[in-house]
């Protein structure tokens, strides 16, 4: 068994956890972060992509709205390259024309301090020509689109640079609790290194849970009850940027009332369904239908466009008393001091909130950590940019520009998302990689219209050359040719780097997120992918069929559309 000793142990590698590790490391603490899968595996990698201006909450949840606009301004500096400055519209569609909400909305924005300007319908239509021409009013707010994958990686990189140790594929299986009744203390955690199967003990002066919707499960390991109300939301990505501005309906937040343009797609979302298990992410046909029907209200015709993918995330909603409807639970965050609350020292839980507020949440958590550890060190994250900000805000043509400028056309691994071989190799070198899905989160591999049709094979070929481009074949007693191979140092994990396993896992991973939305042209596309992998490659008859990775079972969840059902409470 391996032992690690640290001052602060952070559990969870989403936005919040990496934010805490970054903040704490900047304040000079020794930090270890453990995440059971890859960074952003949780809700952070399954969210909607909105950098909130706060515009969704000023009427119902002004505190939350205030936090959003403060952080919106800060993140635009610290994480500039992860953010596209799309701006956002709140539009009054014919369905909502009779409501007094728009005026209340405008007043509340002014009150909270969210810059909000009413613009003419004509101007809105000029900027967003596909917008429903029958809208009545339009308000503009400083919404943005945010790439949570990139942002979390950049934050983790900054944390590492400041000395934090970030361990992915390390799952907390138990907390180490010392002392007796009323005088208990968490002194660390028992962790499973998922890749090697090795047990690891991390001893820490303070343990902070940032496990989002899983916070209850972690707290239970120390005998504390934290009642999470996981609210599942489904989203679907349209193949085109049907809009370049975030489009919200100007009404009380509800299902399917927002479209976020992010990278090459536009994402409609979301639903909000209470689920018991944060891992239950099943998307039902009615949810897909609802997204499309609601999307029509803002962009008529959107339901006829091609859908490339569907996914679902679970809101880490927390309330000390049980809420009837998950949308009524505050979107603000909560820090639980288990010493005060449950008599268990050395243990904090930070949960709730939003991606947009992760930095603020981290700052609050580490402030309390300082108190607990008896030191006074102030937060530095608001004024410390993470690596990459010098690129400025993200813009859509960014990758294309680079490919054209550097004449990298011949190097493309993924034409849909303009991923080059160098980007892929770099990601595989820098981040622990168990599956191609990990690289997908790093470089958007397989996220375009063909959903891995062309790039899966290419990525596998490249990783194989990286991992095994050496003297692996001595069949006729002869070593490889001098000019062969690309052998590059990598962060791949044998035996999971077996190319046939990587290939099968990723094909299944992409399939899983497709079946809920597979029809029309995307179905045709998927059939082409079958032609490539079955007819042409015969990958279902490659050696190594018995191999599996720690993720293989996860990719095998049945996501095929079930019988038509109704929303449970809609």
């Amino acid at each position: 068994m391996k032992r690690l000793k640290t001052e602060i142990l952070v559990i969870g590698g989403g936005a919040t956890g990496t934010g805490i590790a970054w903040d704490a490391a900047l304040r000079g603490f020794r930090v270890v972060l453990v995440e059971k899968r890859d960074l952003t595996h949780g809700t952070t990698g399954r969210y909607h992509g909105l950098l909130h201006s706060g515009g969704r909450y000023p009427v119902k949840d002004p505190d939350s709205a205030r936090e959003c606009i403060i952080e919106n301004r800060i993140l635009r500096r610290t994480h500039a390259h992860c953010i596209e400055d799309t701006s956002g519209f709140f539009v009054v569609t014919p369905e909502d024309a009779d409501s007094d909400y728009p005026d209340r909305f405008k007043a509340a924005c002014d009150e909270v301090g969210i810059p909000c300007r009413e613009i003419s319908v004509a101007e809105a239509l000029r900027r967003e020509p596909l917008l429903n021409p029958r809208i009545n009013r339009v308000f503009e707010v400083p919404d943005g689109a945010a790439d949570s994958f990139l942002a979390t990686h950049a934050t983790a990189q900054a944390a590492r640079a400041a000395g934090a140790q970030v361990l992915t594929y390390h799952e907390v299986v138990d907390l180490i609790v010392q002392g007796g009744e009323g005088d208990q203390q968490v002194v660390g955690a028992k962790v499973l290194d998922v890749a090697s199967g090795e047990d690891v003990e991390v001893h820490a002066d303070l343990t902070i849970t940032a496990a989002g919707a899983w916070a209850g499960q972690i707290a239970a390991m120390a005998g504390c009850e934290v009642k999470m109300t996981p609210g599942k939301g489904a989203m679907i990505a349209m193949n085109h940027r049907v809009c370049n501005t975030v489009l919200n309906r100007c009404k009380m937040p509800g299902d399917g009332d927002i479209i976020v343009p992010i990278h090459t797609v536009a994402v409609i979302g979301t639903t909000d369904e209470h689920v018991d298990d944060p891992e239950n992410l099943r998307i039902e046909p009615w949810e897909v239908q609802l997204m499309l029907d609601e999307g029509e209200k803002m962009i008529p015709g959107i339901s006829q466009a091609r859908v490339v993918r569907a996914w679902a995330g679970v809101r880490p909603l927390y309330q000390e008393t049980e809420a009837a409807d998950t949308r009524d639970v505050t979107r603000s965050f909560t820090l639980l001091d288990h010493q005060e609350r449950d008599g268990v020292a050395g243990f904090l839980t930070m949960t709730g909130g939003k991606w947009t507020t992760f930095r603020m949440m981290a700052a609050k958590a580490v402030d309390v950590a300082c108190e607990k550890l008896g030191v006074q060190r102030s937060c530095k994250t608001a004024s410390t940019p993470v690596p990459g900000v010098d690129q400025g805000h993200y813009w859509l043509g960014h990758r294309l520009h680079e490919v054209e400028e550097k004449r990298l056309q011949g190097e493309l691994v993924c034409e849909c998302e303009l991923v080059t071989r160098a980007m892929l190799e770099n990601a595989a070198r820098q981040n622990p990689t168990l599956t191609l899905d990990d690289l997908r989160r790093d470089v958007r591999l397989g996220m375009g219209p063909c959903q891995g049709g062309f790039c899966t094979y290419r990525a596998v070929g490249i990783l194989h050359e990286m991992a095994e481009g050496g003297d692996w074949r001595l069949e006729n007693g002869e070593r490889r040719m001098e000019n062969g191979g690309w052998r590059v140092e990598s962060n791949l994990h044998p035996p999971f780097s077996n190319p046939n396993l990587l290939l099968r896992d990723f094909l299944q991973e992409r399939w899983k997120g497709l079946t809920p939305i597979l029809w029309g042209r995307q179905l045709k596309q998927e059939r082409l992918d079958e032609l490539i992998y079955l007819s042409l490659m015969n990958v279902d008859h490659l050696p190594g069929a018995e191999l599996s990775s720690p993720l293989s079972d996860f990719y095998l969840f049945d996501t095929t559309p079930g019988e038509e059902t109704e929303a449970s409470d809609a």
Partner: protein
Amino acid sequence: MLDLLVIGAGLAGLTAAYTAAKAGLRVCVIAKGMGTTHWSAGTVDVLGYYPNSSAEPVQRPLENVQTLIEAQPEHPYALLGTAQLSDALKAFAVLTGEISLPYAGAANGGENLLLPSPAGAPRPTFLAPLTQRAGDLSHPDPFLIVGFRGLGDFFPELIAANLCELGYDARAAFLPIDLITDRQDFNTVQLATELENRGRRSRLAAELKRLVQPGERIGLPAILGLDDHLAVLADLQAQVSASVFEIPTLPPSVPGIRLHKALCRRLEELGVRVEAGMEVVGFRSGGQARARFGSPQQVEGFVQSPIPNPKSEIRNPKSLLWVASETTARPLKHHAANFLLATGGILGGGFDSDYTGRVWETIFDLPLTTPQKRSEWFRPKFLDPAGHPVYRGGVRVNKQFQPVKADGAPVYENLWAAGGCLAQADPIHERSLEGIAITTSVAAAQQIVGSGWARGGRGSGSLR
């Protein structure tokens, strides 16, 4: 007037057009795109695996097809029987000889060949073009798989590693891509054209000669020339003094494009026009007009267009009169005595579907066997050996290859169907894509020729 209008320019449409034209019919082919030939390996797969079994490849497809037919009496092959199947494939092999793209099967006649796939798995196929045949895995010669640095669509080490794992003797090597091209941005088709240049070819040959060991055969990505590929192959083998073969690549597929082009050229010689970029958007039958897309006025236009032969309409209320295609400039009407639907299934674009679970045939809205519920379309595993039910559905035809209604009666007397649009097969899972395309289209074309509907049949009263 045309005797036969073929809709679809994939392998099925082109083969049908050839068969009918050879029999003396006046034929034209119109298509929206090029069909799936451009994406496939360029081989003729007849039956690689029994449906539902991922295990061993089928050894003798023509004989083993009986087992398939017994298990699945509605499979398209069941409409043919072994003799007809075998004759159609022989006819196709003869045709490939005529077009200087000779295809042949295993040395042991009737057996499937096993050829290395671009992932290094053995692909079972029945007929392969000359350029791929030296890859035959039943021969013991060791493999040298050569890739090019900078060509991202071909991974020699992956191929060699998997072949080794499976017990074949193989190694890999790389050569620089600038041996072949100076371009930054290229695809396999451009590379193939470059190798038609003698100088580039000799440079490649010199490097290969340096790499190869006695007794080895050399596997290269399928880029050995486009139109002139036989000369390219012969020249390389002569210069290297070793046998050289092609392994198909990711699309665009050079072997597939060669086949498509050669078939089109042959059809041209026979006086058959192949017109791509013509999507059929409406049709007129004796009893019904229909148009997809377009404004109501356009639909009106179709309905009101003069009917060429009003008398025949009265005699044959259930026959098709014309289809209308949409080109960039204007809709065009195509009159013919017979129509053959060879638009493929979901992949070819012959079927479309939507989120309500509806799947429809895009031109005539023919009845389909496809489940009309999304909950019945898929299996949870992408690589499930049984395939996905949505792809098995299609157009049900009678023994004459006429699409039929639920009661078994033909939908239109002069409409026929062949290839990927036929029901009760999953050609990709079975590895029967080209086999079904070729054999059903030959059979359908023969039915049309024999039906009396062609060549004045309409006027002569020989209608059934």
